[in-house]
Structure formats: structure tokens, C-alpha cells
């Protein structure tokens, strides 16, 4: 295990369950099956549909006058909602099957740089999650939609998305995680 210095880390980064080549081909196979039978994978639109559906119950007038969600289709949960449920259950099943299911409140990288405070981690991942969704909808797709399904179809939007996403993610990751935890090789 390569130790790269962690001031007050509470853990280390484990090896992935599968070799990277098998993992990459597995993901590609699932995306191809989805493309053939349904269409591109895209999760972020479902979050907006869920929000719109909730807003419809609270303030139907606002929803009916909103250019983005006044159409009933924009508020409909369908394939994507079931796909999200399946993603949750599939990861849970795989984690249990490999003996890696465990309640965790933070990550090794985060605790190495910011200590073990759960509340601090929760606050920052909440903001991070909100940014992810706002960015995904502005860009008309998330990492699954642009990086996997977008590149699969050679979408013209995939290149600018990939470029700006990776550059910004690397800069912010460096600012928030300057110190590396021990990493299992």
C-alpha cells in the first residue's frame, strides 16, 4: 500500500472489486444493451421531473405557467425512475455479494483533508450534489448522458461537455483535496 501522507485520515482507499479492464467492458456492455432496447442512459432529467411533480402538488398554477414543466410529460416519472431504483438496488446487491456493504459517512480523501466531522461532509456533499444537478440540466445531460451515451453516438455536445467538466473537476478536486490518503494498490 502506498502511503502518501495523510494528516488525520480515518481510512484508506480500497482496491476496486474488479480489474479495470473487466469493469470498463462490463459498463460498456450494459450501456449497449440499454441503447439497443431503450435509448441513451440519462438520469438527471428524472430529478427535475421529480421536483416538477412535487411542485405540481404544492402550486399547480406555478407549474402550469412554467415554460419548462407545464407539459405533463416533463413531470412524468417512467423508465428513468425505474432505472434509478434498479441502480440503487444493483449496487446494494453487488456490495452485499462482495462483502463490501458498510454504513459510511465520509470518504478517505475527505477525512484526510477535512477531518471526520459528519455534518461538515454532509453540508459539502449536499452543495456538491446541487451543483451537479444544476450543471447537468444546463448541459442537457449528466456524466452518463454525455460521457457514455453521448460519446457512443458521437454527439457533438459530448466534446465541450467532457472538456469543461474534467478541467473544472480537477481544479476543484485539487482545492478541496490537496492531501492524498493511503491508497491500496
Amino acid at each position: 500500500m502506498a502511503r502518501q501522507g495523510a494528516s488525520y485520515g480515518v481510512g484508506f482507499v480500497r482496491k476496486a472489486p474488479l480489474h479495470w479492464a473487466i469493469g470498463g467492458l462490463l459498463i460498456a456492455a450494459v450501456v449497449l444493451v440499454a441503447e439497443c432496447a431503450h435509448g441513451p442512459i440519462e438520469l438527471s432529467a428524472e430529478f427535475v421531473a421529480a421536483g416538477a411533480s412535487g411542485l405540481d402538488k404544492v402550486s399547480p398554477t406555478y407549474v402550469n405557467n412554467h415554460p419548462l414543466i407545464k407539459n405533463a410529460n416533463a413531470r412524468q416519472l417512467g423508465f428513468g425512475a425505474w432505472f434509478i431504483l434498479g441502480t440503487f438496488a444493483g449496487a446494494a446487491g453487488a456490495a452485499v455479494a462482495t462483502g463490501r456493504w458498510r454504513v459510511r459517512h465520509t470518504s478517505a480523501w475527505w477525512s484526510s483533508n477535512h477531518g471526520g466531522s459528519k455534518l461538515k461532509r454532509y453540508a459539502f456533499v449536499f452543495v456538491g450534489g446541487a451543483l451537479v444537478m444544476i450543471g447537468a440540466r444546463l448541459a442537457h445531460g449528466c456524466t452518463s448522458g454525455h460521457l457514455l451515451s453521448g460519446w457512443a453516438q458521437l454527439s457533438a455536445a459530448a466534446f465541450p461537455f467532457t472538456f469543461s467538466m474534467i478541467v473544472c473537476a480537477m481544479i476543484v478536486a485539487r482545492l478541496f483535496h490537496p492531501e492524498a490518503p493511503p491508497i491500496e494498490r
Partner: protein
Amino acid sequence: MEIFGLIIGLLFGAALFLSGLADPDKIIGALRLKDLHAIRVTLLAVLAVIIGTWIVSMFHSTHPGLPPNDVVAVLVGGAILGAGIGIGGYCPATGIACAGAGRIDAIVAVMGMLAGGLLYIVMYSSVAAPLERIAHHNPSTLQNATDIPNIAWIVVIAIAGGLTLKALANARV
């Protein structure tokens, strides 16, 4: 169709976890270039789906669904999304998968995503719609946008990606 969504989701979630992408430590490690596992997995997956989609399209019609190419909105959105990943290590798919694997902070991140979805609705007319109108282009492929045939793009991407993957496979991190 709902059952099919559930089945594909089950496979996708399992694949994300087993490949190591459903792990914020692997994502941050890749972004910091200290642990290249997630980069290798993602690059191979992207190359395989590009080539696989091209092969499949010769025998079977796929269901296209290209996103609009509003260049400014895509660049700004990609940067904001990247910032979110750089903070927490979660994107929508990996956040949901990590929540399934027992990570409470991932559940909080998914709640943040729901809040972000609501914020997007609220700011759509004042921010998103004007941004989409700048450099607006209809959904298109690289072939439509550049007049270079898709097969040429596939060859270039496969060679460049394959060489990069070979270098990454030999890297010690």
C-alpha cells in the same frame, strides 16, 4: 418498459460498484491523478461503447437521443457539474449507486441533487433559457457538425484512446 428499466438499472448499478466507479475515493483519486483506476475504467468503457455502437448499428437499429448542442450552456453546465464532482466525488449515477452501497453521505448528495433540480426549475427562465439561446445548435453528431464522416472520427478516437489507455495501463498509480 418499467421492468426493463429496473433490470438495466440493476445491471448498471452492479457494474458501477464492481468496476469501482461507485466510490468517491476512486473519483477524487482520478481527478487528483493519484489513483488512475477510474480513468482507465471510464476511458475503456467510452471506447468500447463507441466501437460497440458502431458495430451494433450495422445490424440493429439503436434508439438515438442526442442532446442539444448549445455550446455555451454545455460548457457552463459541464463546469458547474465538474465543480460539484470535485467537491463530493458523486455524479447522479454514482451517487445513487453509492447510496445503495451504504454511504450515508451519498444519500445526502442525492438529496442535494433533488434540491438542485428544484433550483434549476426556479432559475430556468432567468438563467438557463437565455444561456441556451447563445450559440444554439440543434442536436447533431460530430459528422453533422464537421462534415467529417463518423467512421473517421471513430478511427481517430479509437487510436488516440487506445494509445492513452496503453500508457495509463503501464502507469504505476
